[in-house]
């Protein structure tokens, strides 16, 4: 459908981008200011309006208590996970935060969860794309670090929903980059993607063959990136100032942000120059100045960039490959502009890495390629298919607090595993299951994803029930669980308590909240609601086609339904909710008879033992004739 635009979004720690396929080429969509990069900075201005991107940057220095950056570091995390972050970043948490609750960040006197703050960034990108196309955008592919766990992925998906986006796929950033690289050179070979961004590091090793991009192994660190280099330089500057001038600015948000700005500039300059000066104006007319040589800088950052070596080695080991067996190395992420990082990669893989594409943009370009594939493809993406893997093993806690791994890391997704459980006490009705993610032996060392309570097990003697639980990781890397008691055939009810993350209700209410921001969004909300409704009726119709009742319709009735279904599908992606509503109403009308017949089939099958003639099915138009055979062609 041409009306259905799917954009690719790189929701980065430092910068975010939106891209789409223009003809056969992915291009980044610039903002109103003409810039491709939207800084991932969110601020609340004097009038309590949300400001995003370049415009928000000045607030970081002027009103740091009303602004936030690097929010990606907090996605899908709990308060106990972020103690390190709190030391290094000026995140202001809500005071009334309870343990286990989703984090809330203060901007002025308002609080927002990380997915809500990310949603503000996404909405800015949507606006940029909307302005560019002259029509609203509602469907997107969003990239995530390959090493993101389930909770972090879920949080990203929630952010998309809050922003009013239908997130068709989460794609791993290094894999997306490989799509952008692989577009014009469809060759076979083994490629390593080294992705060092603002806050995350990923390494992925892929096999390319006939348009299939198969990830063989991935590894990384979701808390390693340019931010860490900045924080190191900030600490040094603060220590200098304290030592030389006896002034302690560690708790002064404005000064820290001014220093941050200066060290980032210095870091960038040192990629091209042998030396630079860090210059910061301090309150009271004083100033801080320090010369920094590239050699010094390289020595300082060595311990940070060395942390990328372990994950690279592990990924190669998991892939069963030696460096010389890797044909190409691709660099992604702004931090790979640092010459020392490039030389480290060169040494490790024993070859010169590729830097043909802008490392800041390549992930977004790849996301646009994936969006194009999902939309049905075009000449350049024809035959392209991405087969990604789960970065972390999925496990279950067993006796003794030990992790029993059931889906190993680097398994191609979608992937599934089936486990069997039973009861330990007579008449036991519930079984608790603790789902974990990670590589460690002890459950307490792994990431707790969720606790599941299997409920409604029919009362039986201990050990008799046989509950089959199916774990399925979907193509987004997100876990789904279903359960069935096999002796009774009953679907067991699963109550999920995600260890971190928002409940569906919370997300729904945030979606509604977010619409209060702008009036223009009201229309968009109606579009989304109409689309959802269209989806529901189309799904119901698909089910209905398998019902015997379908055969009882006249061929005219069926033809009419087919026609109206096609019509609804063709307007489902439209921006005008009225045309979608019209389609829904028409199809609803046409399927009324089918619905009635289906109801009857259901009733009749309940009344088994009775013959059709004995059954009082009533009279009149509301009670059709289940025994009357429709004319078969």
């Amino acid at each position, binding site marked *: *459908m041409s009306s*259905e635009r799917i954009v690719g979004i790189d929701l980065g720690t430092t910068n975010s981008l939106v891209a789409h396929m223009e003809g056969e080429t992915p291009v980044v969509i610039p903002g109103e200011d003409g810039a491709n990069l939207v800084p991932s900075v969110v601020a609340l201005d004097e009038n309590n309006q949300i400001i995003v991107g370049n415009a928000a940057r000045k607030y970081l220095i002027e009103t740091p208590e009303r602004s936030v950056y690097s929010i990606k570091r907090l996605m899908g995390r709990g308060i106990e996970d972020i103690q390190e972050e709190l030391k290094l970043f000026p995140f202001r948490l809500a005071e009334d935060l309870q343990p286990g609750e989703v984090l809330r960040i203060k901007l002025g006197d308002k609080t927002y969860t990380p997915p809500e703050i990310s949603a503000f960034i996404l909405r800015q990108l949507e606006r940029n794309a909307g302005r560019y196309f002259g029509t609203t955008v509602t469907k997107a592919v969003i990239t995530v670090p390959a090493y993101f766990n389930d909770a972090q992925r879920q949080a990203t998906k929630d952010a998309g929903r809050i922003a009013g986006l239908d997130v*068709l*796929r989460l794609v791993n950033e290094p894999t997306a980059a490989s799509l952008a690289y692989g577009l014009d050179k469809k060759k076979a070979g083994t490629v390593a993607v080294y992705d060092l961004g603002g806050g995350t590091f990923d390494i992925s090793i892929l096999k390319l*063959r*006939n348009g*299939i991009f198969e990830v063989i192994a991935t590894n990384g660190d979701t808390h390693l990136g340019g931010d860490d280099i900045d924080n190191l330089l900030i600490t040094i500057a603060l220590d200098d100032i304290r030592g030389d001038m006896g002034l302690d600015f560690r708790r002064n948000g404005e000064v820290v942000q001014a220093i941050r700005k200066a060290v980032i500039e210095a870091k960038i300059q040192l990629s091209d120059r042998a030396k630079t000066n860090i210059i910061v104006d301090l309150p009271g007319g004083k100033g801080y100045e320090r010369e920094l040589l590239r050699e010094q800088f390289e020595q300082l950052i060595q311990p940070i960039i060395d942390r990328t070596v372990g994950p690279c080695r592990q990924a190669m080991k998991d892939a069963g490959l030696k460096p010389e067996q890797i044909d190409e190395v691709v660099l992604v992420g702004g931090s790979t502009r640092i010459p020392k990082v490039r030389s480290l990669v060169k040494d490790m893989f024993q070859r010169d890495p590729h830097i043909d594409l802008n490392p800041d943009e390549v992930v977004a370009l790849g996301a646009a390629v*994936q969006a194009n*594939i*999902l*939309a*049905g493809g075009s000449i350049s993406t024809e*035959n392209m*298919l*991405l*087969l990604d893997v789960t970065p972390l093993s999925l496990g279950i806690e*067993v*006796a*003794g607090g*030990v992790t*029993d791994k059931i889906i190993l890391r680097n*398994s*191609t*997704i*979608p*992937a*599934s*595993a089936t486990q069997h459980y039973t009861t330990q006490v007579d008449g036991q009705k519930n079984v608790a299951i603790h789902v974990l993610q990670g590589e460690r032996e002890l459950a307490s060392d792994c990431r707790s994803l969720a606790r599941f309570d299997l409920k409604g097990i029919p009362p039986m003697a201990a050990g008799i029930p046989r509950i089959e639980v199916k774990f*399925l*990781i*979907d*193509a987004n890397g997100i876990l789904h669980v279903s359960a069935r008691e096999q002796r009774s055939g009953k679907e067991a009810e699963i109550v999920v308590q995600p260890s971190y993350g928002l409940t569906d209700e919370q997300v729904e209410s945030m979606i509604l909240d977010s619409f209060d921001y702008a009036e223009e969004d009201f229309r968009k909300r109606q579009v989304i609601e109409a689309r959802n409704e269209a*989806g529901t*009726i*189309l*799904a*119901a*119709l*698909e*089910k*209905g*086609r*398998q*019902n*015997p*009742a379908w055969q009882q319709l006249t061929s005219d009735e069926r033809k009419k339904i087919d026609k109206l279904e096609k019509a609804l599908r063709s307007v489902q992606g439209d921006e005008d909710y009225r045309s979608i509503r019209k389609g829904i109403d028409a*199809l*609803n009308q046409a*399927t*009324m008879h*089918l*619905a*009635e017949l*289906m*109801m009857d*089939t*259901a009733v009749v*099958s309940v009344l088994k033992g009775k013959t059709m003639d004995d059954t009082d099915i009533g009279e009149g138009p509301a009670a059709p004739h289940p025994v009357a055979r429709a004319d078969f062609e």
Partner: protein
Amino acid sequence: MASAESKSSLILPGEATSACWSCGTMRAQHFCSACGKVQPPVPVDYFTFFGLPRKLNINLSGLEREFYELSRKLHPDVYAKAGKQEQQWSLEQSSLLNDAYRTLKDPIKRTQYLLRLEGVELEEQSKSATEKARVKGDLKKQVVPPALLEEVFELNMQLEELKANKKLGEDDPGLVKELQNHKSQLENKQATLFDELKGYWTEWDKLGDAAPNEDRIAVRDKMVDLLNRRNYIRNLVRDVNDALES
């Protein structure tokens, strides 16, 4: 439309072929050969999923080709614009495809899987033993294969010695060297075992379904025994690696 329970009477689980839910033509296993649409998954074993006989010698490049071909037809990306039900089937079918490919492409996993189909519960045995040992708080007791007794004894002595040295902060390059030698011997043994296993694969593949049950059980048990020995050696190698790396 009212939500009535639909009984999918058109598609009976377990049927190898059936009519496509969408166009009504007879379909192949995973997707309709006429209109190409994904079909609801049918519970089959991994060999059947790939249309392969239950044999252990497999043409790996053929398997990979088939995996890619099926991926192109079943992957959720292909159904991004389809209805919810088709998306669900595609998700289930492609996870089954990936699970099957992962199992069959790996020689050991493939053997274990076939043995499981033949009624041997390899993993469960070792899992419950591990769990028991953990609850009791002691190490899992494994029966040392007799042929390895002497070697294991010597190896354990060396590992203990290495641990003691490390505690005292002493270095013994000679001991490390010996352990490394031991390790490479064990790895050689693993390779030999693998060759032996391949011999059993061929024996098994020749038997076929019509072979007398005793013959099948005999080959089956030889493979079980070999996998146990192999596991034991693999654990030893891991212990040596751990000791050397720590």
